[in-house]
Each structure stands twice: as C-alpha cells, then as structure tokens.
C-alpha cells in the first residue's frame, strides 16, 4: 500500500473500523513508514479533541413547535381548527381575542366584490393587482410556508407561477385546465380553500390565488 492509500484509511484504522485483512495491510505499512505512523498518532490524539464540539439541546418549546407543525401539515384544515381548540392551556388565546378574530374573519369572508371600499387598504391594493375581482382564497397558518407549499404543488401539476412577491400574498399562476380540479384538491391540503364559483381567473386565464393567514 502507498502512503496515499494509507491516508484514506487512517480514520477507520484509528477507530478500529477496518476489517482484519486491511488492518494487517496497514500495520505492515506503518511499521516501515515513519510519516504515516506519525499521522496515525496525530489522528488518535485529535479525535477526542474534536468531541469537545457539542451542540445545544433543541429546546422543549422548539421540539413541541416542530411536532405541532408536522401534525398540522398532516391534517386537513378542519382538523387544525379542532387542534387549536384542544391546545394545552399555555397555548390558549384569551376567549375575547379569539372571538374578535373570528368575527373579523366572518366579516371579511362575507364581503362581496362590490364592497371593496369597506375592505382594508392593503387588501384593496392587492385585489387591484390581481386583475380579477374574485380570487381563490387560501387561508394558511403561515404565509411563507403556504407560498412554498403552493410553489411545490404548482410544479407538481406542470403549472407555472407567473408572478408573485415574496412578502406579498397574491399569486398568479397557470395550470393545465384538465388537471384543475385535482389541483384544487391539492390546495385543500395546504390550507382552508375558498373557491368562488366563477371570476377567479384573470383575462389571460391565469388562476389568481390570494394567500391569507
């Protein structure tokens, strides 16, 4: 064996991970080569030093959030609502706050296109940008995660996202009309879907999806 070949085996040799035949071959070389013996000694001395690089523990809170996000990812929107209701008390929001948010959501959902003047300013601006008065609405827990999921879904269906803005909530996309229904079913896995009967396409046929939290 050459020194070059020994170099590639030293790590396993130092950790007793070589099979007998290879170990014996390395032993023969080491007896005759001072440089490789020195390299082995250095490697053996260094391995315990490298173990000083410990990582912090993932906090219980972070582990809980991770498990929760996976649970959410795996369940439908109605299950997510149920999970919110049954969250441990430390995650429960004050009843009044929940009620106010729920009322606001009901109010927004029920607003018709002709009521635009009553919608919040930012929403009105976004609506103007969508080139349709009645976009598909997708309610997600996190806009960025929802955007990522949507991008994946669109790619999966051979569609194209024509324009979107990272910090914004409007996505225009095109998709094969034959696969549209399947695509809508996929949207339901990402968030709560509100699809109007008509008017959700721009003049050029682009589907317009508004992602809201």
């Amino acid at each position, binding site marked *: 064996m050459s020194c070059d070949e020994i*170099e*590639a*085996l*030293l*790590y*396993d040799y130092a950790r007793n*991970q070589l099979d007998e035949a290879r170990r014996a071959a390395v032993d023969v070389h080491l007896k005759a080569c001072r440089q490789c013996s020195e*390299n082995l000694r*250095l*490697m053996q*001395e*260094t*391995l315990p*030093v*490298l173990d*000083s*690089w410990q*990582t*912090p*523990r*993932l906090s219980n809170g*972070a*582990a809980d*959030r*991770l*498990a929760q*996000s*996976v*649970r959410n*990812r*795996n369940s439908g929107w109605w299950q997510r609502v149920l999970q919110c209701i049954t969250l441990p008390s430390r995650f429960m929001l004050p009843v009044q706050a929940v009620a106010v948010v729920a009322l606001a959501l009901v109010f927004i959902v029920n607003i018709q296109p002709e009521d635009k003047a009553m919608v919040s300013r930012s929403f009105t601006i976004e609506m103007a940008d969508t080139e349709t008065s009645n976009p598909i609405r997708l309610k997600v827990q996190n806009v960025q*995660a929802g955007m990522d*999921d949507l991008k*994946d879904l669109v790619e999966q269906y051979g569609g194209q996202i024509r324009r979107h803005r990272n910090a914004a909530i409007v996505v225009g996309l095109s998709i094969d009309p034959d696969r549209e229904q399947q695509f809508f079913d996929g949207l339901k896995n990402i968030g709560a879907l509100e699809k109007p009967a008509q008017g959700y396409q721009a003049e050029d046929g682009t589907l317009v999806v508004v992602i809201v939290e």
Partner: protein
Amino acid sequence: MTELVDADVALFEQVLAGDADAADRFTRKYAQEVFAYCYRRLCHRERAEDASQEAFLKFWKSMRTIREPEKFRGFLYHIARNCCIDIHRSANNTERDDNLIDAGQELPSGLYAKKQLVAMIRTILEEFDETQKDAILLVHYQGLSYREVSEILGISIGTVKSKVSRGMLRLAQILKKRGIVQ
C-alpha cells in the same frame, strides 16, 4: 457509527401507514439529531431550528417517494442539508452567531478555552470544500454510515471514506500547527 436498527425502520413504516402517534414519536426522536447537524452546519441556533423545521415539513411531504424504507434517514438528512444551504445563502452572514465570544465577556477559563477550541474547529472546517465538510459532519459527528453519506452527497462510498480520513488528518495537522495537539 449509529446503524439504523429494525425498530427505527418499523417506526418509519408506521409513520407511512398514517399512524399519528408514530409520527409524533418519529419527529421527537429525529428532531434533536437533525437540529444538531443543522446547528453544526449553520452555527446559529435560530437558523438551525428553522432549517430543522423546514426539513421535517419537506420530508413529510415527500416521504412517500422513498422506495426503500431503510433509507429514510439518508433522505431526511439530504433534505436537511439542502435546507441548510438555502438558509445559509439567504441569511445575513455578517450577523454574530452562537459560538462567538463577546469582547469582555467573563467566562470560566475552562469554558473560554473550550469555546475558543470549538470556534477554531469551525473556522478550519469552513475552509474545506462543502462536500468534505459535510462528509466529516455526517460521519464523525452525526454517526451516519458511509453508505448513507454517499447517498446524501451523491458520491461513491470510497470517496466518502477518503474525504473523511484525509479531511480529519488535515484538521489534525492544522490543530497541531496551532498548538492544540502535540
């Protein structure tokens, strides 16, 4: 090396079958492991937590494409690696990270020396090419098998072995030059 045992594969198969409790146990079992890898790769606690979360969500979305269940761990790490690469690219890398020591910060001498040593190991590894650095992190620190790492990095098992051994020797030689080892 931490070889996957039948119980790990059985747990993953339960997850695939839609068992919610198994999914919870699986996430908690591998969360720390994946976080540790992301932390060593990004050296930043919050970013490592973000990368771990992102990795699990992506893993969950695509795990049904895994044809051989015993390869799930390599698949999970492959995704985690890509998430780390994305987060590293988009992050503001001038921001201080968790391993730096504040000027004037008072630490017990032993702890100070340990932090200095960890910072040194990190800095040395930063100079390695990405594949070699990952091979060392995955084999030495995460305890993955050469076969798993070869699949994660898309290189042959022989190349992984060689990259790890030569990389560790290079690391040892630099630490010797800096007086850390004799």
